[in-house]
C-alpha cells in the first residue's frame, strides 16, 4: 500500500467515514501493524493541532472584533491612577522647567559677574573697612575708659547695701557699721573726690563696728583729719549732729543727746533725737565742737525721733584691738581738732571729704 493511500484510509477511519466492516478490518490491521498504528496516532495529533490552531485564530479574530467595540481610550483615562498634580506637572514639563532653571541660574551668575559682586577683592575691601571702623570704635572706647579712670569716675553695678563711714586716719582707714559689711563680696567707698575700693580690716560684730582700709591704687591719701575722737561720755541735752549718705547726696541732721543709755538701758549706746535714715548707719555723730562722740546705729522701728549711736569709747577700743599683723604701722589718731570754734556750716565744709558713702556688693 502506498503511503498516500494509507493516509487516505487513515483519514477516512478518523473521520468516521468507514462502514462497520471496513472499520473492523482496519482496526485489526492497526493492532497487527505497529507502524500503521503509530501513523494513525501521529496523524490524529497533527490534524488535531491544525484544527485547534484554526480555532485559535478564529477565536482571536472574534476577540479582536469585540475589542474594537470598546472605547479603550476613555477607559484608560478612567482607570489610570493619576499622580499628584505636582508630579504630573513635572512629568509633562520637566524639560521646560529644567531649561528655565538653567537660564535663571545663568542670568543670576551673569548679573553678579557684570556688577562685580563676584569680585572677591570688593568683599575684602568692605571687610577691611569694617575692621577699620571696629578698630576706631575700640580706640575711642579705650580712650574714654582711660579718661574716665583718670577722672576717677567709676562705673559700678547697682550696690546691695549702702551706708556711711568716716575716716579715722589720713592713710584711708575708715570706720563704719558692721551690719553693713556683714555679707559683703566687695566694698567701695565714695566721697566728693572719687570711688575707691576698700577691704575690711577689722570688725567687732558685738559692737557693730567695722574698720575698712582703702586699698585702691588711685587713692592718694586724705589730708589731716579735722575732728578728734572723744573718749569721755557726752552730756545729756548736748547738741549733736550727723553727716551721712542716706541717699546719693550727703545729708546733715541735727538733734540732741537725749540719753546716755540706749535701748532698754543698753550702756553701749546714746539715745539721740537726730533724724536718721537707713543710709546714715555708720556715720559720725559729732558734738558742737567737732568731736566725734559716736557712730550712728540703726533706727528703732516704730519709735519716731528715737535713734541710737554707739559711744565713741568703743570705737577707740576697737581701734586699739586691731591685730598688729593687719597693720603696717599702729594707727595714729588725730588729737588736734581743727573744727572747734567754727560754725556748723564751716565744720561741714571741712569734714565733708572725710565722710564716705559705703557701698557694699
Amino acid at each position: 500500500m502506498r503511503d498516500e493511500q494509507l493516509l487516505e484510509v487513515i483519514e477516512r477511519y478518523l473521520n468516521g467515514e468507514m462502514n462497520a466492516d471496513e472499520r473492523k478490518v482496519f482496526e485489526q490491521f492497526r493492532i497487527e501493524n505497529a507502524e500503521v498504528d503509530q501513523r494513525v496516532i501521529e496523524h490524529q495529533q497533527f490534524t488535531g493541532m491544525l484544527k485547534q490552531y484554526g480555532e485559535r485564530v478564529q477565536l482571536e479574530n472574534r476577540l479582536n472584533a469585540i475589542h474594537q467595540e470598546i472605547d479603550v481610550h476613555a477607559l484608560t483615562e478612567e482607570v489610570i491612577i493619576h499622580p499628584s498634580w505636582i508630579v504630573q506637572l513635572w512629568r509633562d514639563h520637566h524639560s521646560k522647567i529644567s531649561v528655565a532653571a538653567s537660564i535663571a541660574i545663568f542670568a543670576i551668575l551673569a548679573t553678579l559677574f557684570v556688577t562685580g559682586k563676584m569680585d572677591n577683592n570688593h568683599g575684602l575691601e568692605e571687610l577691611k573697612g569694617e575692621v577699620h571702623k571696629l578698630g576706631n570704635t575700640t580706640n575711642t572706647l579705650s580712650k574714654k575708659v582711660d579718661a574716665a579712670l583718670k577722672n576717677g569716675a567709676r562705673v559700678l553695678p547697682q550696690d546691695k547695701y549702702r551706708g556711711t563711714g568716716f575716716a579715722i586716719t589720713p592713710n584711708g582707714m575708715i570706720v563704719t557699721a558692721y551690719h553693713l559689711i556683714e555679707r559683703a563680696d566687695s566694698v567701695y567707698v565714695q566721697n566728693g573726690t572719687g570711688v575707691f575700693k576698700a577691704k575690711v580690716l577689722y570688725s567687732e560684730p558685738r559692737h557693730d563696728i567695722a574698720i575698712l582700709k582703702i586699698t585702691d591704687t588711685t587713692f592718694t591719701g586724705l589730708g589731716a583729719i579735722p575732728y578728734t575722737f572723744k573718749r569721755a561720755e557726752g552730756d545729756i541735752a548736748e547738741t549733736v549732729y550727723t553727716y551721712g549718705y542716706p541717699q546719693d547726696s550727703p545729708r546733715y541732721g541735727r538733734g540732741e543727746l537725749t540719753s546716755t543709755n540706749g535701748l532698754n538701758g543698753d550702756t553701749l549706746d546714746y539715745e539721740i533725737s537726730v533724724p536718721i535714715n537707713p543710709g546714715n548707719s555708720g556715720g559720725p555723730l559729732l558734738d558742737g565742737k567737732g568731736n566725734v562722740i559716736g557712730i550712728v546705729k540703726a533706727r528703732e522701728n516704730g519709735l519716731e525721733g528715737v535713734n541710737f549711736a554707739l559711744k565713741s569709747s568703743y570705737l577707740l577700743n576697737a581701734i586699739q584691738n586691731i591685730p598688729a599683723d593687719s597693720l603696717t604701722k599702729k594707727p595714729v589718731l588725730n588729737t588736734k581738732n581743727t573744727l572747734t570754734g567754727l560754725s556748723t556750716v564751716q565744720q561741714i565744709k571741712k569734714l565733708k571729704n572725710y565722710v564716705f558713702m559705703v557701698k557694699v556688693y
Partner: protein
Amino acid sequence: MNKEFKTSTPTDSEIVFGILNNSESAIKRLYVAYFPMVLQLIINNNGTADDAKDIYQEAIIVLYNKIKKGDFELNSKLKTFLYSVCRRLWLKRLSQMNRYGGDLHDFQEYSPVEDEVEDQAERNMQFSKMQSALGMLGEPCKTIIEDFYIHNRSMQDICESFGYTNADNAKTQKYKCLQRLKKLFFQQK
C-alpha cells in the same frame, strides 16, 4: 485607589454555559465585563493599552479553553481567575522586558494559576510554529490544508474551487502539501 466598575457583570454560570454552547454573546459579555479591571492592572504597572489587550485576550483564551475542556470549577470566580492569569502573564512579560521592579500594584485578590499559564505558553509555542509553517508552505497548499483540515470543507468543494480536473489530483496535491507542512513544522526548533 481601587475603582470598582459598575458595568453590569454577567453571572459566572451564564458565561460558562454560554461558552459551552458556543454562544457568541457570552464571550462578548465576558470580554466587556472584565477588560477594565485588566486595563487598570496593566496601565498602572508600566504597561500600555495594547499590552492590556494582548494580556487580556491571552487570559480569555486560557479561560475559554479551560471551560471548553470542562476543567473550570464554578466555585472559583471567573473574575479572580482572569485577574490571576493576567497578573501572572504580565509579571512574566515584565521580567522578559527587564522592566519588573519587584513590586506589582494590585487591585484585586488573586490565586495561583502557574499551571494554566505554563500550559498556555506551551500551546502558544506549538501554534506559532504551525503559523510559520503554514506561512512558509505557500499557495495553493496553505489554502487547501486550511480548507480541508480547519474549515472542514469536502475534497469535492476544494477540487472545484481550485479547478482540479479530478478529485484524485486534488487528493494527491493535498497529500503532498500535508507532507511538506509536517516537514516544515517539525524542522522548527
